[in-house]
């Protein structure tokens, strides 16, 4: 019953916009970030640390907006996806 986050995200439906990342991060800012709170805050594990460097992917994003507040360094640029792309809840 207890599932890994990747497995849980696999249950959720997406129509990923391959040509448009609705969230972008500025690597230069992230490099100097003292806390990387985004890694803890993001419920969809879009932010991970790899070899001491922040790695971001938007594909699993559930568009909650948490990272836009979690990031107080001005790195996260947040927009909604276009044309209904992104997460599509079947239950909600």
């Amino acid at each position, binding site marked *: 019953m207890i599932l890994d986050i990747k497995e849980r995200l696999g249950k959720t439906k997406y129509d990923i916009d391959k040509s448009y990342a609705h969230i972008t991060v500025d690597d230069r800012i992230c490099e100097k970030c003292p806390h990387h709170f985004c890694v803890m805050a993001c419920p969809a594990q879009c932010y991970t640390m790899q070899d001491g460097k922040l790695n971001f992917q938007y594909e699993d994003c559930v568009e909650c907006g948490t990272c836009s507040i979690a990031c107080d360094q001005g790195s996260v640029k947040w927009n909604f996806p276009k044309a209904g792309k992104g997460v*599509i809840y*079947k239950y909600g």
Partner: protein
Amino acid sequence: MLKIAVMIKQVPDSQDISIDPVTKTLNRSMARNVVNPPDVNATEAAIQLKDKYGGEITVITMGPPMADTALLQLMGMGADNGVLVTDRVFAGADTWPTGFTLASVADFLGGFDVIFCGEETTDSSTGHVGPGIAEFLGYEQATYVHKVEYENGFLIVVRDIEGAEETIKIGTPAVLTITLNANEPRNPTLKRKIDAYKKGIRLVTNKELRLDPACIGLKGSPTIVKDMKTVPDPIKNPSKPTIEELDKVVSVLIEKGVVK
């Protein structure tokens, strides 16, 4: 001015369809309705053709009244008109009467220079309807097309044939079936969607078409489904390869220079 049609279908989103573990039938109850994906590529191809050579695009579908949202979606991308062919007498059609009915609609609307279709639908995957329309109308046809140019009344199209591409020149009027991912469809815009909503969808029933009831819908369908079987998931319980087998794979890869 090219007169262009796009024949499209609203289908249940294939991501939403599951196989009921008990009845072994398709469970579509949770499925969202979407435009059959290659039909979106077909619409994009039509819009690109219109942008380059001028013309007017009519998107046409045969389906229940709720299929109007599919037409509005494609008009939001840039198609000019939407026609919904809807009548109980068309229900239950297999690919033969579907091709016949859509060809009759094209004829009823005065014929077209180019008719675009998707290569196949995700809910039946026959690829019959496009060629069917062409045959019923007596138009030229090219299937599995991913690139279209127009020159002096001829179409120069690039077809996907297994492992290669084929460039052919065909006359008009013609039916082209467009492959999935042939292009990157543009997003609908708010303004165009509002305009589509204001313009509305033209409804066509068999009152206007006057097709012989024996040739349409379930009655006109020669297909009989005899049996349906659920094939077990092949990924489940794969036998693990032995070390010897893996060694063999590695040695072949080294031999071919793939790994060092």
